[in-house]
Structures are given as C-alpha cells and as structure tokens.
C-alpha cells in the first residue's frame, strides 16, 4: 500500500463532496492510501498570490510542510489547488530569503518547509504510480459502451513551467485513464480549454459563453458524458450548465463526471455510492 498526504480542497468539503467520498471508496482497491491533512488550509485559489504574495507563500509552505512532516508526497484533486500550491513551491525553492522568512514563522508551529515533498494531482498518481496495467486488471465493469469527452481544465496543464506533466497543447493522461477503464475517448477540441469558473462571479456572461462552448462541442461529438479532473471545472460545466446553455439558446444537456467517479464506476461501485446523484445534471 503506497501512502500519500491528501490535501482537502475547500470545494470538495462543501459543494463537490462526492469527490472525496468516491476516492475513499476505491483508494485501497488500487493499492493507495491517502492520509487527509485536516490541518491544511485554503491554498488561496489562484487569488491570494496577488492579494498578498507573502501570505500566499506562508499558507502553502505550511500545506506542503504538513506533508513533509509525514514524509509523504502531497496529493491534490483540484486543478487550481494543484497549480497554486506548485506555484508557491516553485517560488519558495527559488528564493532562499522567502523560504527563511516563512520557516521562521512555521517553526513556531513545529513545522519546516524543506521542499522535499512533491505536489501531485491524483490523476498523475493513477497514471504514474498505480499504473495503467494495474488499473486495467482491477476494472470490474469496463466503460466499453461509453463515449467520453475528456476535459482536462487549465490548471493541470498551464502554466507548463509549473505543471509540466502533460503537453498543454495535446494532453494525454486523462485519455489514457479513460482507455484503461475500457471507455472510448473522443477527439475533443475543448480538452485543453477553459471552463470559465474563475470569472463566474466577476464576468458571468463571458464565463457562461466559455462553458457553453465546451458543453456544445461534447454534445456535438455525441459524448455520453464529460469527465474532468477538477471540481471547479465540474461546478462550471455541471452546476452552471443549465444557465450556460439557456444563455446560448441550446435545449440539450450532458452529464459531467469527476475522474474519481469514473474510476469508481469501472471498479464496480454504483452511482449512489459514488455520489453521482448529487450532480445538478443527471
């Protein structure tokens, strides 16, 4: 059983509880154990970095230091949390002064940021550590009748100087996961585009246009569902779907799954167990 520290994203503790619930169901089936970091705090969601760069460094040095204290890599299942924490890590690793300033504060809590734990997305762990062969062997209910549109989202791909796992122009990890689970991955042009989530409250019309475009292409491809590794993309594409499509004058709909639910379905868990019934679009 390979152990990892697991970062609790704010949205997965409120609106998208089904993400952590579904991971809890199958993690041991795939030989991984995620140790939840209840002391962890909000990463700043791609906002704290410009409101106060030093608080941003402190908060995320602490999030990583909690994993380092356990001697484990930090695993994240939200794209924006991933990008944010990895950005902070890059800044800390490049600036000994910032690292010292932050560590002088952290030692009051018995913590130290050393830079020894990697910060990784759950999708990367599934591909690189668990491995596609193991996943294929564990599949009980292959997704063979499903046409699936892979929506990667931005912050698992860009900026590539911070992320660097997939080619941001033509990512493949999610496609590989879909295929390993027996599903049919579709040539989806919006796979590496944006869902519009981060401006839903400040430029709503633009965000709805962005979401509608992504939804429309998936429906044009006759996808059975969209799958995404990010709960924020899910909120934009599922939660705001009706509004986005109404705004675009479209009278169709398409379900949107988290990767954790898609894995769970293939491993034999049912929609109720996985929390799929909590989605707005069924």
């Amino acid at each position, binding site marked *: 059983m390979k152990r990892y520290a697991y970062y609790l994203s704010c949205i997965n503790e409120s609106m998208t509880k089904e993400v952590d619930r579904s991971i809890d169901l199958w993690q041991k089936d795939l030989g991984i154990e995620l140790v939840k970091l209840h*002391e962890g705090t909000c990463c700043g969601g791609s906002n704290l970095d*410009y*409101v106060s*760069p*030093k608080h941003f460094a402190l908060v995320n040095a602490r999030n990583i230091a909690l994993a380092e204290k356990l001697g484990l890599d930090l695993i994240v299942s939200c794209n924006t949390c991933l990008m944010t924490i990895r950005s902070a890590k890059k800044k800390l690793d490049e600036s000994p002064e910032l690292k010292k300033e932050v560590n002088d504060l952290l030692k009051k809590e018995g913590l130290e940021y050393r830079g020894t734990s990697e910060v990784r997305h759950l999708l990367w762990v599934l591909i690189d550590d668990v491995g596609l062969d193991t996943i294929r062997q564990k599949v009980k209910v292959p997704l063979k009748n499903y046409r699936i549109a892979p929506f990667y989202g*931005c*912050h698992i791909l860009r900026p590539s100087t911070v992320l660097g796992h997939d080619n941001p122009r*033509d990512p493949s990890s999610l496609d590989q996961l879909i295929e390993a689970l027996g599903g049919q991955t579709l040539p989806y042009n919006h796979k590496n585009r944006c869902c*519009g989530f981060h401006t839903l409250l400040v430029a709503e019309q*633009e965000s709805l246009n962005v979401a509608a475009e992504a939804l429309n292409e998936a429906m044009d491809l006759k996808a059975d569902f969209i799958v995404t590794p990010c709960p924020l993309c899910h909120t934009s594409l599922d939660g705001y779907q009706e509004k986005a499509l109404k705004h675009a004058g479209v009278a169709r709909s398409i379900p949107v799954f988290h990767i954790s639910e898609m894995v769970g379905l293939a491993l034999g868990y049912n929609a109720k167990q996985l929390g799929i019934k909590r989605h707005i679009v069924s």
Partner: protein
Amino acid sequence: MTVPTDQHNELKKDVTFSIFRFNPQVDSKPYFDDYTIPVERGITVLRALNYIKEHIDASISFRAFCQAGICGSCAMRINGLSQLACTAQVWEVLANSREEALIRIEPLRNLPLIKDLIVDMDPLVDKMKRYSNWVDSTMPEASMGKKEFLISEGEFLRYDKATDCILCASCVSECTILRANKAYVSPAVLLKSYRMNVDSRDAIHGQRLAELVKDNGVWDCTHCYRCQESCVKTIPIMDAIHGIREDAIELRGLKDTSGAKHAEAFMSDIEKKGKLIEATLPIRTNGVFWTVQNLLPMAVKMIMKRRTPPPPPLVKSAKGIKIFRGLFREMTEHVKQDHKSHKK
C-alpha cells in the same frame, strides 16, 4: 496523439499545407486550399508559404516582414496554435501534428478577418489607446533632451521581460475571455499597461489603473494561462496581470470593484477559518441584489441536491486554526513593514 519522431529524420519530404481562404468581397464562406510542396528539413512555415505564393498561387494573402521573429507581423494559427510563421520550423510542427505530413494554417482568432490569413489589428491598437499604452513623461517638455532620465537596474528588471513584447497578437488570438467578449482589454494590452505602470518616469499611473479596473478590464481575466503559454517571447503575461491586480489592491483598496472584493474574501476567510466560506462569496463579491437575481434558481436546485455550501457558522475551521492565525497575522505585520520600507 503525435506521429513518432523517427518518421521525421528524413531530409526532404512532401508536405501539404491546408490554408484558410476567405475573400469577403467574393466568397460567401471560408474554405481551405491544399498545396503539397517538397520541403527540406530546416525550412520555416513562412518560407514554405512564400514558396507557395511565388510558385503555385499568388492570390494567397498573409503578412510578413522581418523573417527573424522580431517584427511580429506573421503570427497565424499553425496546426491550431497561434505563433509566428517565421520561427515555426516545418519539421517541429510536423513532430506535434495529429496528421502525417499535413499542416493546417489559419488566421489569428479574436480579431476581424480582412482576407485569408490577414486580420485587422485596429481593435487592438484602439485598446492600446484607451488604456494609454505609452509612457506619459513626468519630465517637463522644456527639460527634455537637456538631461538624462535615469532609472535603476532594479526598476528595469521589473518590466524587462514585458518590453520583449512585439505585439504579434498570438496571446490575443488564444485568449479565453476575448473569445467570449470582444470588448475585453486583452492580454497584450494588459501586459503593455503593466509595463507602463511600473515605470517611474510615467505620470499617468493612477489614470491608467482607474481605466484598467473598470468593466472589461483586468478583473475579467479568468487565469487560464493560454496567453502566457502561447507567447512567442515566453513573457510571463500572467505575472503582469497579477501585478496590475496587486497594484490595484494596494492603491485602490480591497472594496473597489467586484474583482477586488472577490479576491479579498480569500484573504479574510483564510485568516478566519483557514477555509473558504463559499456560501457568502457571491454576496460579498456582488451584493445581495445581484446574488438573488442571478443565482436563486440555481441555489434552489443545489438545495434539492444537498449541494449548497454550508452557511458560515457551519464551516469547519482547519485543525489548529489558532496557531495558524497567529502566524498569518505575524506575516501581515511583515507585509506592513515591507510597505513602509518600500515607500521610504
């Protein structure tokens, strides 16, 4: 999926260029023309286009000038990605191509099309004017030319990378928000605005910033990083956008615009609970009226699915929040000290 690289070890091969064509004066709709030509390894897309224009079809229109990645004239979408034709190597483009020996050439997005691969840059120039993308000098006109206007190396380093921009508009073409709203300021203009705003010789910093925080301005960026990823000069454009936001918050406060209020919520929630209090985020960003008018129908559905975020008192604080809050507040004191010494 890409074609295996060993297929690209040849020194010469036939390559098909599928080129977007549209002349609004005669065509009812756009179409693609395919031209297959022999291409040697080391040839750029621009040289291939020049060959096609000179030897096969003189009617194809595209802009090009320096042929050295300096002037920014020849930006176009090559296999879907906005970039300069004069620095794009045919062999490298093919190595990342979905189809063997085929390169698709299209005009930039998000700007009006004039003909074939030529777009109208005027909307971008108009935005540069609206956001005063030049240094309006603090030096009186009478003193100009009589004394040097020196800046420190430290200051120059703040906008060194931003000055590399050649206005090729690749970032404009890739921008998510511009695609959804043509009035949006655009990444290139935000980058230029940042570059002018951090220049100590400039006199209209406040005026420019006031324009940038209005609707269609800096707060409408959705942090997708497509601009930065496509920049032909690898300029960290998002750092410039974040730089303008940081500046706006420092000078104009956290309650100035809905974007600033939204950003402020993260700071205050992390200090209070260590967690984001999502239930009240729309109200804190846009007020009660907007929230009721825009989100009520969706909120009802979310309640039915038990998907609503918990009300503020029920948001569980991160474990050990008291010690964390102490550290957070100590950092606030550090930041205050930094600002004081910065002002000195």
